[in-house]
C-alpha cells in the first residue's frame, strides 16, 4: 500500500507579520504626534507674540525669545550630529544582525547606547549653560516642557537599546526583528529631534 497516497497536503503558508516592528511603528507615530502637537502650540505662541522694536530701533521683532537668553548652539548642533551617528550605528546593528554577527551587533548597540547617554548629557548641558528657570516666563516654561518631553523620548529609546543589547549579549542573535524595531524607533526619534532642533534651537 502506498503511503504517499494518504499524505496530507501542505497547509497554508505561515505568514510572519513581525508584531514588534508594527509596535515600534505605532510607538514612533505616537511619539511624533506628541511632539508635533507641542511644536504646533510652540509655533502658535511664537506667531502670536507681541511685536517690539529692535534695540537699534530699525525694525520690529516678535517679543518671543527674551533678550538675555542665549541658546548654546554648539551643544544643540552637536546633539543633531549625534543623532545622525545614532542612526548609522543602529543600521550597523541591523547589518550585523542579518549576518548573524553577534559581536558586531552588540558592539553597534553599545555605541548606540553611548550616543544616547551623550545626548542626555548634552541636553543637561544645554540646561546648565542657558541658566534659566522654569518659572521665569512663558518662553522658559514652554522650553522646559518641550525639551524635557524630548529627553523622555530619548530615555525610552535608551531603554529599548538596553533591551536589544542585553538580548544580543545574551546570545539571542536570531532576534533580528527586535534590532530592526529598535532602529525604526531610533530613526523616528532622530526625525522628531530634527523638527525640534529646527523650530526651537535654529528658528528659536
Amino acid at each position: 500500500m502506498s503511503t504517499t497516497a494518504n499524505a496530507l497536503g501542505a497547509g497554508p503558508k505561515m505568514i510572519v507579520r513581525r508584531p514588534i516592528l508594527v509596535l515600534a511603528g505605532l510607538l514612533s507615530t505616537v511619539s511624533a504626534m506628541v511632539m508635533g502637537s507641542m511644536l504646533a502650540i510652540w509655533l502658535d505662541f511664537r506667531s502670536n507674540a507681541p511685536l517690539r522694536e529692535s534695540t537699534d530701533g530699525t525694525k520690529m521683532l516678535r517679543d518671543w525669545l527674551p533678550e538675555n537668553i542665549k541658546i548654546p548652539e554648539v551643544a544643540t548642533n552637536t546633539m543633531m550630529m549625534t543623532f545622525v551617528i545614532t542612526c548609522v550605528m543602529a543600521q550597523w546593528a541591523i547589518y550585523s544582525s542579518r549576518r548573524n554577527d553577534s559581536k558586531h551587533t552588540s558592539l553597534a548597540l553599545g555605541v548606540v547606547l553611548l550616543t544616547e547617554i551623550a545626548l542626555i548629557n548634552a541636553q543637561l548641558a544645554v540646561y546648565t549653560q542657558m541658566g534659566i528657570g522654569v518659572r521665569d516666563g512663558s518662553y522658559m516654561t514652554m522650553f522646559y516642557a518641550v525639551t524635557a518631553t524630548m529627553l523622555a523620548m530619548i530615555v525610552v529609546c535608551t531603554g529599548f537599546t538596553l533591551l536589544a543589547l542585553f538580548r544580543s549579549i545574551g546570545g539571542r542573535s536570531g532576534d533580528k526583528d527586535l534590532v530592526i524595531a529598535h532602529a525604526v524607533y531610533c530613526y523616528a526619534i532622530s526625525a522628531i529631534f530634527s523638527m525640534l532642533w529646527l523650530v526651537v534651537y535654529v528658528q528659536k
Partner: protein
Amino acid sequence: MTAVEVGSSATSSGVQSATKSNFLATVAAYLMTNDHRRLGRMLISISAIFALATAVEGALLAAERISTSSALLGSDIIVQLFSAFRFDLIYAVTAPLMLGLAVAVVPMQIGARSLAFARAALLGFYLWFFGVVLVGTAYLNNGGPGGGDAEMVDLYFGGLGLVVAGLLLISASVATTVLTSRRAGMTLIEAPIFSWSALVTSISMLVTLPVAVGALIFVAVDHSYERSTFGASDGVNAWLGWAFGAPQVFLVAIPTLGVLAQIVATMTKGKQPLRGGLLIGVGLMSTAMLASVTQTSHTVTFSGGLGEIAKSLVPYLLFNDLSILGVLIVLGLCLLAMKNERAKLDAAFVPAFLGVGMVLTGMIGSAVQKITNLNLANTVFEEGVLVYVTYGVLLSSIGAVSYFGPRIWGRQMPSTPVIGLGLLGFLATVLASLPFFIAGFADQPAATVTDFKYSGPAWLWNSLVTVGHLLMTLVVLLFIGLAMKSFRKGELNTATSADLFESVKG
C-alpha cells in the same frame, strides 16, 4: 458524636479554606492575566460600573437645572461635576467599553492564539483604571478644570495622563493584533468587520490622543510652575476641551458600526453584500480624526454671496458630514442585507441597531450645531450631542455583549430581556438628550445651572433629561444583573463559530 462534630467542623473548615483559596486564586489569575477574554471582561465590567456613576452624574446635573432659583449642590461642585460628566462619558465609559470588547473578541475573530503584547494591554488596563480613580479623587476634592485646590489639580493632570497612556497601550495592542496575528490565509480585507472597525478606532486613538498629551504636558507644567501662560487649571478647557466632546467621541463610536454589521452578517448566515462598501463606511467615519487632530471646528454661515458660502461649506461638509455619510452607508447596507430571506432576527440586533441610530442622531446634531445661523454654540445642544453618541455606544455595547457574550463567557443570554432593555435604553437615550436639543434652540446655556431664563418650559426639558439619565442608570443596572445571572447560570453556549462570526467567503 463529638468526633463527628469535629470531623464535620474540620471538613467544613477545609471546604471553606479551599473555597477561599479558589477565590483568591481566581482573583490573582484575573489580576495578572494575559488571557484576552479575561482582560476584555475586566474592561467591560468596570466600564459598566463607571457607566452607572456617570448616568447618576447626568441625572444630578439635569435635576439641578429644573429650578434655577434653588440649588441642591454647591457652585464649586457644579463646575467639577460638568467637567467630570464629560470626562466620564468618553474616557471612563465608552472608550474602555469599546476597547474592552475589541480586546475580548478580536483575537477570536481573526484566529489569533492571543492578544499581541497582552501584558502591555494589561498594564494599559491598570494605568487606565488607576488614572480614572485619581481623576475621580481630584474631582471630588475640587481639583478638576477650574478647581481651587492646586495639589488636586496636579493629581488631575497625573490621572488624565495615566488614562490616556492606558488607552494608548490597549489601542496599540489591538491594532498590532489585527495587523499581525491574523490566521494564515486571512488578508486584512477579509478580516471580520468588527475587527476592522476595532482597527480603525485603535489607529484613530493612537493618532489623536497623543495630540492631547502634548497639550496636557504644557498645561500641567504651566500649572506646576508658572500659572499664567496656559491659564493654570482653567486652561484645561481651552487647550484640552476638544478631547472631551465631538468629534473625538465619534472615533470611540466607530466599533458600533462593526457590531451592527457583524450581527447582521451572521443573522443572514451569508456573505455581507457589498462588503467593500461596508469597510469604506467604517473608514469614512474616521474622517472625524482629521477634525480631532487639527482641533478645528469648521462652521458654515448661510449668508452673504454664494462664493463665501461655498468657501465655508466645503470644509464644513468634509469635516462634519463625511462621517455621517459613513454611518448611512453602513446602515443602508445592513438594511439591504436584512432583505435576505434567510435572515433571522437576533435579539442583539435591536440594541445594536438602536445604538447606531442614536450615534447617527448625535452626529447629525453635531453637524447642525456647526451652522452658525442657528446660534447653538455654548448651549445645552452640545451636551445633547454628547449624550446621544455616548448613550448610543452604551446601547450598542448591550447588543455586543449579548451577541459576543456566549463566546466570551460560554453561556447565552435570553432574548426577550435583551430586546426589552434595548427598547428601554432607547427611550432613556432619547429622554436624556432630545430635550436638550430643544432647549438648545431656546438658548439654554451650556454648563450653567443658574441665571438662565427663556420662554419655553425649562423645567420640563430638564425634568425629562433627569428621568432619561435615571432610566439609563436602571437599564445599565438591569443589564449588569441579567449578564451576571446569564453568564453564571444561563444556557450553555451551543452556537458555532459560523453562527457568531460572519463568513467572509460565504
